[in-house]
């Protein structure tokens, strides 16, 4: 790891003022479970780390009629154990418990989870987010893309969005709040994820001198939600496909649905096709299967990842059946 300056502001405003206006100079340091690995591997080499863990405003979980508010520094273990989360957002609680390992969940913050960098092995080996060789050849197209995107992969970005929490939060219609030199802003979580087109861009709608302050989730007691992951290993492994769904029912038929897939595209992927296919349907093997097929209709496999299309279909189908049969609870 290269040497760097380390600062520990105690207010959001101080933190923002210590962050540089362009990427590469500074990084926000929360739990460090992702950032330190990237620095040790020399993928990132910031000149200054801004430790935000001393900022009290970024802590805390509250629940009221408006819904859930989670401070960016809340760690995944804490959030998974929160009684309100377990009761009112069971699919989120389940996604949290399936993530990483107990040790990591006790360090990893929600803000860091949503901002974690892609697991793409080209990126992690220092070839960049949109890896090319010196002749301009796209390494992922030519190379081993077994873990890469099957949707929204026609641009140079082929990595998959790594958070397994983001899809379920999006299914629950979460919003993310940011603070920077120009003040505060709030956006639907799905809008926070963007597909970079050049190597100087990142995969988040986050300015280099902005921080994530909190995540808010509207009440969801009227929703049937579920989260389903496909991982080869039982623990400590990256998923091959993730699906999160939230259904609002009218009697036994779907009034509205949200179907979000993870590990299929450079961003958490909302499938309008699946949502349409479900509209006014009751959930059965058959309709779940059809919605899953619709979700992947536009998938385009790379040379080594056609199996992921099948896995994503299975994840969507199983998430729907799980939601219909009572969800995560």
């Amino acid at each position, binding site marked *: 790891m*290269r040497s760097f300056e380390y600062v520990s502001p105690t207010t959001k405003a101080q933190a923002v003022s210590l962050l540089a206006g362009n990427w590469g100079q500074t990084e926000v340091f929360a739990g460090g479970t992702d950032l330190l690995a990237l620095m040790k591997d020399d993928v990132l080499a910031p000149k200054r780390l801004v430790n935000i863990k001393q900022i009290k405003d970024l802590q805390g979980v509250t629940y009221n009629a408006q819904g859930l508010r989670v401070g960016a520094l809340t760690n995944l273990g804490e959030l998974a154990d929160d009684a309100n989360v377990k009761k009112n957002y069971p699919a989120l609680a389940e996604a949290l418990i399936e993530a990483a390992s107990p040790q990591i969940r006790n360090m990893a913050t929600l803000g860091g989870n949503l901002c974690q960098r892609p697991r793409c092995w080209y990126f*992690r*080996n220092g070839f960049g987010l949109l890896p090319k060789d010196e002749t301009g050849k796209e390494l992922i197209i030519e*190379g*081993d893309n077994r873990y890469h995107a099957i949707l929204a992969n026609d641009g140079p970005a082929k990595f998959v969005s790594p958070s397994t929490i983001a899809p379920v939060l999006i299914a629950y219609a979460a919003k993310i709040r940011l603070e920077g030199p120009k003040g505060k802003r709030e956006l639907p979580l799905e809008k926070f994820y963007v597909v970079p087109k050049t190597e100087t861009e990142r995969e988040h709608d986050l300015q280099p001198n902005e921080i994530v302050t909190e995540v808010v989730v509207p009440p969801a007691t009227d929703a049937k939600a579920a989260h389903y992951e496909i991982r*080869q*290993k039982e623990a*400590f*492994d990256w998923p*091959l496909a993730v699906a999160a769904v939230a259904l609002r029912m009218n009697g036994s038929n779907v009034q509205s649905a949200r179907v979000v897939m993870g590990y299929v595209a450079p961003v958490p992927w909302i499938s309008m096709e699946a949502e349409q296919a479900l509209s006014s349907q009751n959930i059965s093997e058959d309709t779940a299967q059809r919605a899953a097929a619709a979700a992947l209709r536009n998938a385009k496999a790379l040379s080594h990842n056609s199996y992921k299309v099948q896995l994503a279909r299975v994840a969507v189908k199983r998430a729907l059946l799980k939601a219909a049969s009572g969800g995560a609870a």
Partner: protein
Amino acid sequence: MADYGWPDAEHRTLIGKRITRVDSPVKVSGQAKYTYDVKRPGMLFGKILRCPYAYAKVVSIDASAAEKMPGVKAIHIIQGPNSTIHWAGDEVVAVAAVDEPTAEDAVRAIKVKYQKLSHLVSDAEPPKGAAQAQGPLSMDDIDDMLDNQVPARQMVEQIQQYGITSKPDEGTLKGLQEDGATDEVIKAIRAATVHPEAGSRPKSNYQKAAAQTLGDGEKAFAQAEVISEGLYGVPVITHCCLESHGSTSEWTDNDHLLVHMSTQNVSGIAGQMAEPLKIPATNIRVHQDHIGGGFGSKFSPDRWGIATAEVSKKAGGKPVRIMLERDSELKVAGARPSAYARVRVGAKRDGTIVAWQSESWGTGGPGGGGMPPIPYVFSIPNQRKEHTAIRNNIGPARAWRAPNHPQAAVITMCALDDLAAKLNMDPLDFFLKNIELGKPRQAIYTEELGIASDLMGWKQKWHPRGQNKSGNLARGVGLSLHTWGGRGHASDCDLTIHPDGSVDIKMGSQDLGTGTRTCILMVAADTLGIPMDTISLQIGDTMYPPSGGSGGSTTIGGVSSSTRRAAVDAREGLFAKVAPALNAQPAELESINGTVRVKGDSSRSLSWKEACSKLGAMPLTVRGKNPDKSKPPDLTNSGVGGVQMAEVEVDTDTGIVKVKKMVAVQDCGLVIDVKTAESQCHGALIMGISYSLFEEKVMDPTTGRMLNPDMQYYRLAGLNDIPELVVHMMTGKGYDERGVIGLGEPPVISPGAAISNAVANAIGVRVPFLPLTPDRVLGAFQKAGA
């Protein structure tokens, strides 16, 4: 003469029992010191600049900026200008500095210019026409064959058949001998025809060896009633030692070196470091207490080990530590050769196997690599085999626990299992039907298959392929057989009885975590008739008598034999001194439960301590050796058989395989410690599940670099991936009399084949290659049109 033979079951107090390993307390409490834990006063930290290209020439190196950096103490060029680099991550420059970050900064400040050459990192089936007929062998080729553990007989045949490219000098021959060349191989080299013109011929990446035949394959296939054809294979995997490779070296004066090294070969390291460092081996002391895994990859000091000593020297002799980072560990410190084959096997309608044909290929990195011993275990009467070795730039191969056997098991046992399916036979019946081809171990295999079948519940669990499915979950069972040598290596053991009754043992062996310490103490204590904890054991140092490297499952046979001989001689020496005091002849005495007494007469006895006081002022030290023809009988033996069965569950929608149960039935002659023997099998099954389901060294074709040199994508089985493991050791009559035989490797041979066969049984189609990941399983379905 004293009776050195192993006592029979009634006369053993410890041997053959279940004894907990003696080093458990220090390991679980964190007191055990691994090489990684060694901290020497004033120690510097070394780092290595590695070439990012898979195939390149070093053009120039400019280390001037690094030299000037504060805190940088020494820089040593490992491969200078004009060197050719054959794999990404190969060592170029070593640096020592006051701390790790400074050393890393220095490495980044060194400017190296490379000329890139075009690399090959694929080990896919050789393109048609690409293979070049194997020609005369260079000395490097022969060295590679030794590295790849090509059997001596096969090497001699090739040398005789193809000749050599240049006449080697005596030094080179000596080097080959040190690398394991047998006398027959050296003799063949001396006698070989020299073809100097072939030495300069450019070499294809694909070298095809002459076909090997047995019997009349063509005729046998023509007469076969059922023929099965298939594709099988295993990719390159790494050793992934949890304690990476590395050492700390320091010069205690101008020409004496102290080395702490993570190694499987304590006694053999000094000899390998002497020549490159130009000091006598006797001036090099090597020490190791505990090791965090080797699996066949830690026999040599390696280029980085020599470099550690070199930078230490340049830094005024200060201790320098270089332990590999995780990524280097996975990139350069060991890989198991791949092996793939297209196989045809033919049988009569009744299941009798008559013919085998295989076209195999695989890579062992730049050295190419030989054909695994196929067909494995079963000596099929008619055979035709062709093998193409791929020389490529993925990094060097090393012996990986039972070199070449796991590959051979997958290729053979999966091909035979497919044949059984085509014959509509239960593979258990099919293998038993052909068990005579498993000579000379047919009786052992038959007994083991029976036991394994009961432990697995095979008869209840086996169904014809693809017929045990409920919903999307399919269940299946599979089996495999294996064999291994395992004769004890050369070992010297010094055992001292002191006049105060204390006993110590010194031996330059190492305990790989297999229980070697425990077994040495069990043999000594059983022989001397005193408790294990009254004996002090020192191993892991070149100050102690040499004992062989721990490879080839040779350690237990070696150390238990030398310890037994030492303990018997020491006991007899003691009896000679004690006999007068008991008014008896030495031959009438026995030592048991801490007393020395006249056999069968407990009234004429002395406590062990009193007995030892009769030694007088001087302790009694004896040396036991293995082998030692002057002190028969032979206490070790060679040749074991094992059977394994696996039960799996496959999610046919996702292709995810879960192993539900594994059964291992294993013979290894006389078992010293049943508990550590079983542990060895448990460990092997876990490692086997890991390589069957997860492990693969993934190379990027464009950059030639490894894509998963980390533990997120180089995946190992975790606790939850390990199912019920049932281990049964064959002991008692028929086994004990054979003497002690090694066990480290055999139980890791069969899991790949057994699990692959279980998956085929569950889902009804063969997944050709390990690891059995969802993409491969779903791919096999797709290919079968299912």
